[in-house]
């Protein structure tokens, strides 16, 4: 039965396309979710008409299963429509309501043409399932877009937040900002080791001024990084240990072993220069002044 309902519905929509569209647009214009600030009536009408045409074509193929191949164009249409609306600033429910509001004109159309009670309910049920599924799909598309943005930003943040800078020939610095978890440790380690290979640096300063807390886990990750750098032939100095952090480290019983630690990056840099056989001296003009 449902297939004959879809084909009949398709013919009905085709024949009364203008009326249905008019009703639908009228519904949308009076709806609470209308956003005249984001889209004018003309655009709304165009979007509605495109969607209605796509919907009718998919129905004409006689397939009530929206996962079928006949519905692919409708899915594509929804994807671009949902993306466009999300960008314009529509909320997911406003976009979904756009699709849901098609129910009313379709119900009206069906009711005006079909008199048999059984067929009437069959048709209403088919319309409801179809439109509901399509409406929910817009929300899903919205959600997927959001998720992909979050994943991408996480990735970018991870890369941005772990720079390796060259302080001097043979001296690298890794200013760590934020909590050190295993994923970040991995990135820090890879970046640092690669830079050691590229620059031939012999000393790396890991600055933890921006690390809010150091617990056993963070210390473990730091030590791992230091061990890996040592295997590549580079010595590491930990700098930027705030007084509270020093206390925490001792209270927790974290064993930093033979790793040299300094209070500030400047101290660590001085040590690094001394180890490289360099020194910083005031110039003549500064000495006079």
């Amino acid at each position: 039965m449902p297939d004959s309902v879809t084909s009949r519905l398709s013919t009905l929509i085709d024949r009364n396309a203008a009326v249905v569209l008019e009703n639908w647009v009228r519904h949308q214009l009076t709806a609470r979710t209308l956003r005249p600030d984001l889209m004018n009536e003309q655009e709304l009408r165009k979007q509605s008409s495109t969607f209605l045409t796509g919907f009718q074509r998919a129905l004409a193929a006689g397939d009530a299963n929206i996962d079928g191949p006949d519905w692919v164009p409708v899915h594509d249409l929804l994807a671009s429509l949902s993306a466009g609306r999300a960008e314009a600033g529509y909320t997911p429910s406003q976009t979904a309501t756009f699709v849901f509001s098609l129910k009313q004109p379709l119900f009206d159309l069906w009711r005006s043409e079909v008199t048999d009670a059984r067929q009437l309910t069959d048709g209403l049920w088919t319309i409801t399932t179809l439109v509901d599924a399509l409406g929910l799909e817009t929300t899903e598309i919205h959600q997927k877009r959001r998720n992909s943005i979050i994943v991408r930003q996480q990735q970018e943040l991870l890369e941005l937040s772990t720079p390796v800078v060259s302080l001097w020939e043979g001296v690298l610095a890794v200013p760590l900002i934020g909590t050190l978890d295993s994923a970040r440790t991995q990135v820090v380690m890879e970046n640092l080791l690669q830079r050691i290979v590229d620059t031939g640096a012999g000393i790396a300063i890991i600055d933890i001024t921006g690390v809010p807390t150091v617990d056993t886990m963070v210390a473990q990750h730091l030590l791992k990084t230091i061990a890996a750098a040592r295997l590549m032939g580079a010595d590491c100095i930990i700098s930027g240990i705030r007084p509270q952090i020093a206390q925490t480290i001792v209270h927790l019983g974290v064993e930093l072993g033979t790793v040299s630690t300094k209070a500030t990056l400047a101290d660590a840099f001085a040590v690094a220069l001394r180890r490289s056989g360099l020194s910083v001296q005031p110039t003549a003009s500064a000495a006079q002044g």
Partner: protein
Amino acid sequence: MDRIPILKMGRFLLVTIQVDMHDRLALALQDDLTARISETGARGVLIDISGLEIVDSFIGRMLANIAAMSRVLDAETVVVGMRPAVAITLVELGLSLQGVRTALNVERGMAALEASVEPVGRHDRARH
């Protein structure tokens, strides 16, 4: 069976690992190297592992063992040219090769050895 060549460079021995190590090869290297150290009286061993792409816990332990054996024979070991991926793997395996000296490349490793065994060099050569 193929073996890893051990080259004598002055007072030091140079071992360049260019192939992926398998366990038999590693054991053969241990035998050969200890024999060469006692034979030549070498004061230092450079192990260049820049060609090594894959390590497992056995190879990691073998590197530590070789260093320990050489130390017993009064030769210092420097492992040079470790790749970043290899270093990360070893650390993840919990093998940080404590007690093994490391350097970025052969040149640096050689300089480190020179610096650490310098004082006894002249005396040593006179003996032979």
